[in-house]
């Protein structure tokens, strides 16, 4: 009889093998596209979760950073010929800078009004990119010049390559989350999420902690923006600052399990798989089907499982592998 600890190692090793080998076995490009979406939105969910999940600062404006990341790397590439790999980091930097004034404004409000303020700031950024044509192509957007297979310019002929880049981003996000979760910062974040006033009363510098986690969350979200633009070879304000990105970032984390390491990944697996199945059954002819189903899932989770689906999985794990009473 093996112990749960050993099983955990076996399960993790199996997961690594499956995730690394998946694009080698499955070569259908529709399927790989879905895998990439799952990895990408898991990553965005992980970035959102740092601030929204642990510190309970429920932003619906993360499209702002996604868009800034996308535009920074694209402007650098198209106007200055700088590689998107550098542009990606630069975009993260721009997003961090932008998060300071945005945070300064939005953190003045708490709870739902913080959420509204984040929506408004993201929409305002989109309007800036729409109206000021000199800044970046206005409403028409632009296509990314196709250079064929140019790994140094983050362009690949094989879709599998994008898969591994997205996987790399997700691993980065998970490692950062894991490190923060197990540091003082993690405890401060949870304390702020539980009760901000009480946390401040025992000496947590809440404004500083919130600002710092917002910087990290914005940086990571911007990386996703660069990747996505490179992947679809196109950018315009409506795609880069799409409100649905803000929605999905929050949704995957909440459905999977808010404030948990793996929650956003589990949430994305469920939502994106559902969405892919719906698309193959119904086609994309009827507008609104996907978000109708997403919102029904969200309502169900909020009413019956507010801690997210990860709770269902850990309960199942406990059921089959009860804690060894002799070791406890």
């Amino acid at each position, binding site marked *: 009889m093996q112990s749960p600890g050993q099983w955990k190692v076996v399960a993790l090793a199996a997961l690594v093998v499956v995730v690394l080998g998946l694009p080698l076995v499955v070569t259908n490009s529709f399927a790989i596209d879905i895998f990439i979406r799952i990895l990408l939105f898991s990553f965005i969910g992980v970035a959102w979760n740092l601030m929204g999940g642990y510190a*309970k600062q429920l932003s619906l404006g993360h499209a702002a950073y996604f868009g800034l990341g996308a535009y920074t790397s694209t402007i650098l590439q198209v106007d200055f010929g700088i590689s998107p790999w550098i542009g990606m980091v630069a975009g993260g930097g721009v997003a961090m800078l932008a998060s300071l004034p945005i945070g300064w404004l939005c953190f003045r409000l708490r709870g739902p009004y913080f959420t509204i303020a984040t929506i408004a700031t993201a929409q*305002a950024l989109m309007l800036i990119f729409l109206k000021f044509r000199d800044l970046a192509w206005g409403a028409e957007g632009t296509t990314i010049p196709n250079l064929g297979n140019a790994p140094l310019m983050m362009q690949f002929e094989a879709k599998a390559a994008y898969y591994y880049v997205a996987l790399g981003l997700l691993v980065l996000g998970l490692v950062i989350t894991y490190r923060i979760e197990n540091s003082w910062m993690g405890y401060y974040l949870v304390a702020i999420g539980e009760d901000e006033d009480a946390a401040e009363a025992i000496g947590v510098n809440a404004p500083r902690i919130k600002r710092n986690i917002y910087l990290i969350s914005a940086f990571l979200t911007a990386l996703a923006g660069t990747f996505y633009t490179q992947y679809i070879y196109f950018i315009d304000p409506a795609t880069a600052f799409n409100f649905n990105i803000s929605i999905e970032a929050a949704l995957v984390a909440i459905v999977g399990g808010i404030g948990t390491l793996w929650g956003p990944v589990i949430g994305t697996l469920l939502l994106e798989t559902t969405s892919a199945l719906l698309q193959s059954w119904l086609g994309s002819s009827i507008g609104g089907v996907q978000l109708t189903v997403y919102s029904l899932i969200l309502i169900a989770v909020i009413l019956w499982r*507010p801690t997210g689906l990860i709770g269902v999985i850990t309960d199942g794990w406990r059921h089959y592998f009860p804690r060894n009473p002799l070791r406890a």
Partner: protein
Amino acid sequence: MLETVVQAVINGLLIGGIYALVSIGVTLIFGVVKIVNFAQGEFVMIGMYISFFLATQFGIDPIASLFVTMPALFVIGVLVQHFLIRRVLGPNDMPQIFLTFALSLLLLNLALMLFTANYRTVHTSYSDAAIHVSGLYIPVAKLIAFVVAMVLSGLLWVFLHTTDLGKAMRAAAQNRDVATLMGINPNRVFCVAVGIALALAGAAGSLLMPFYSAYPFVGQVFVLMAFVAVVLGTLGNVVGALIASLMMGIAESLGIQYVGADSGQIVVFAMLLLTLAFKPNGLGGGRVR
């Protein structure tokens, strides 16, 4: 010169009446139940579609369909409070924010599936009529909407200040625990508050129908305006929300007149950001009235 300013102010004031109906609903729910209803705009949309179908199927005038939309949305409001919102009330923000947000997403996308993204309009005999007073132009449909909106707001004020139920509602808004100790049934009060708020949204929908198109995303236009007005007018304050909505309408109209036809949204965001930067607690104090 002066005439164009006055004209812009009048235009803003008239549409501000509609904004007021939406923001009073938002602020009433926030004041009494302590949640933000992200779906308020979608209830305006439902009101519009009800009026649209009553007008096209049965030839009922959109203004007259107030007598259908308001009771219908009141009932929906009671059901929403009793079966959904009641279950997430507690110290935790996340379920409250995302329940009404999910409801908004659901209603919007259901409308998209059922009615498609097409614009629906109702043409009434007074849709194009206007009153001309010393060079000023006052569209009749908007004037009716404004007057009815103000009457409904006034009735709400009278209800909140003179009836037992209204007083109970204000008591529950000030201190839920003490109100409960005084024998007020909070869920009943909450049901009525959400019901009234949604009835106002439905009224806004009916009043809009003679001069505005119904489409699935229409609620978003009004709810954003309402959120800004509610912050500006101090959260939970009904009179504040009314005054702020009229101001927002005027500001938007002046923006359209002097900055550009598509600058309405920019004005709204600018007002929100300025409010957050300088008056995060609203223009008044912090009291619920």
